[in-house]
């Protein structure tokens, strides 16, 4: 009797696991079949704006369909495309993300990296194609002979880098920018998820070839690694519960024994301690900013200090929209740079040239608009 129960339990559990796996694959298959037609149309429309991508349309259609998981329906992708063709760069975040993941594979044939970072270049060229400027006209500024560059990134930091909900790929401002740089200097960037608090040590130990993770250039970090020229300027901002009207700016944080959540090892931690004057005991350090937001919502902390665009992005997400609010203006000024191991002057120089070219062509500003970074 007892043995039978055990076997029965084993059987039930295994079949449960198998069922989960089965449902997952079938949904994906059905989806990929279902979305083939509209996406192929869409990506060829896109391709028209891009030189050389049209031939990849058929490949892209299947690939794009693959990236859409169970949640993405025909309508969803159609809306995404509509928004795109309407020429609006400020399309809703999800539509854009679907868009980007759809276009990923289209670019695969062009840059042959097969990594997600390559895609956004096409997504961008798609966007720009629609709005009228051609991205691909930029001439390469250096040739690193197709060098593979592993980029470490803490992918919990939208809009700069995050894992897309439907495609499970790394998307955001940083991968997009890196893909554009990659085209200009002939490197194959590949983003890898990393923990932020150990990211510079890992870079110094050559675990990555570069770190692009919304990294502020600081003197402390310069002791460990080298930096490219700045590419974006942001500031630290405070986000608090809507129900707490007492926190109006960063100067209020040090009063009332408020608990302030930060991500470990970030400039937000530093700003909370030094600029906002929060006592060490009241600063709660998290592995990633997502956990801090969860705690803020649960009322376990009173406020969060982090990079402005990121708190803005989290604050707009459905889970937090009604609960939290960004308060006050940015209270620091910080420049993001791409971190490179000490001594890799070849890569550093090439990236700087590419950044300069992209800046001059207005590509970085376009990207900032796309991701709503002020």
């Amino acid at each position, binding site marked *: 009797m007892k043995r039978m129960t055990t076997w029965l339990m084993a059987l039930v559990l295994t079949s449960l696991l198998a069922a989960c796996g089965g449902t997952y694959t079938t949904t994906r298959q059905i989806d990929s079949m279902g979305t083939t037609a509209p996406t192929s149309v869409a990506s060829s429309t896109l391709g028209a704006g891009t030189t050389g991508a049209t031939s990849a349309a058929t490949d892209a259609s299947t690939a794009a369909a693959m990236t859409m998981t169970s949640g993405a329906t025909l309508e969803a992708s159609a809306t995404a495309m509509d928004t795109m063709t309407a020429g609006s760069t400020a399309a809703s975040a999800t539509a854009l993300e679907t868009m980007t993941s759809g276009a990923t594979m289209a670019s695969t044939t062009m840059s042959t990296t097969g990594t997600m970072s390559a895609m956004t270049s096409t997504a961008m060229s798609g966007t720009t194609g629609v709005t009228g400027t051609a991205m691909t006209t930029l001439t390469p500024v250096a040739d690193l002979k197709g060098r593979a560059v592993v980029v470490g990134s803490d992918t919990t930091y939208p809009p700069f880098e995050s894992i897309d909900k439907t495609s499970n790929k790394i998307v955001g401002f940083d991968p997009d920018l890196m893909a554009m740089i990659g085209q200009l200097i002939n490197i194959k960037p590949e983003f890898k998820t990393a923990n932020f*608090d*150990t990211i*510079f*040590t890992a870079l*110094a130990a050559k675990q990555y070839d570069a770190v692009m993770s919304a990294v502020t250039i600081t003197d*402390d970090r310069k*002791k*460990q690694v080298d930096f490219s020229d700045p590419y974006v300027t942001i500031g630290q901002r405070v986000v608090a519960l809507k129900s707490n009207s007492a926190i109006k700016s960063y100067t209020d944080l040090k009063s009332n024994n408020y*608990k302030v*959540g930060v991500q*470990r*090892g970030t400039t937000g931690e530093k700003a909370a301690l030094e600029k906002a004057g929060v006592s060490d*005991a009241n600063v*709660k*350090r*998290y*592995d990633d900013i997502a*956990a801090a937001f*969860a*705690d803020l919502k*649960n*009322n*376990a*902390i009173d406020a969060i200090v982090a990079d402005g665009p990121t708190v803005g992005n989290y604050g707009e997400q459905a889970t937090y929209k009604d609960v939290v609010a960004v308060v006050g203006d940015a209270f620091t000024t910080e420049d993001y740079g791409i971190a490179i191991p000490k001594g890799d002057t070849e890569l550093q120089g090439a990236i700087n040239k590419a950044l300069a070219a992209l800046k001059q062509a207005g590509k970085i500003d376009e990207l900032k608009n796309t991701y709503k970074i002020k």
Partner: protein
Amino acid sequence: MGPRANELAPASSATSSFTMLRRLPIWLVILVLVGLFVLYSMLTGDYLSTLQFLVIGVRLTVVSAVLSYALALAVGLIIALGRVSRNLLAYNLATLYVEIMRGVPLLVILLYAQFVVVPGLSNWLDLNLHTRLLWQRNSAIAGVIGLALGYAAYLAEVYRAGIESIERGQMEAARSLGMTYGQAMRHVILPQALRRVLPALGNDFIAIMKDTSLLTIISVSELTYYARQEASRTFQYFRTYNAAAFLYLTLTLLLSLGVRYIERRTSGGRR
């Protein structure tokens, strides 16, 4: 009883010095020597400032380990009694608990405690704002609850092993003397069972001391939390984690010496 057998044998002077050597805790001597050396090299350089910073975290490490262990001992005993019970409901509830808690990683249990259980409980109990803050603001409470509930499952199995190792005749004899099941358990079975599982219980205390390092994930400011903070601001990983390991080792070695002492005390009556 290896050493004892030697004692009884007619001992030449060579064997007796050998016996002496065998009874000496050589591992401890080596450890103390290494420890002193490490301590010396630590206290001279930058290690001092690192250690001074990390020591702040030791308090919460010890407090949360002791609290969660005490809680786990109590909950575990209740579950163990359920596990050996003839009562169908008690047996099944206890088994369900053990199977679930033993099957879920402690880290996941802790994340549950912090992000699901504690906020959920305070909503459900509809606590007033003051209590809610006290309890929700302190992630150490969620940590202690999580650790204790996770370890209760392990401890329950340890208790059960002890209870089941006591010969059936003991219970029968106690019952035939007119004791109830509860009395027999309390006065006859459990005292013997506890003595037998004492090493295993002590082992789990040491394990829980080390597992408090998991609390860093829900930002409880214990030793590992401070170590990571120090490492992320100085980038001195080698030094920082050496210091952290040294502090943990000090704690666990002290504990294991304590466990040995208690074992010797309680096994006195049996020999």
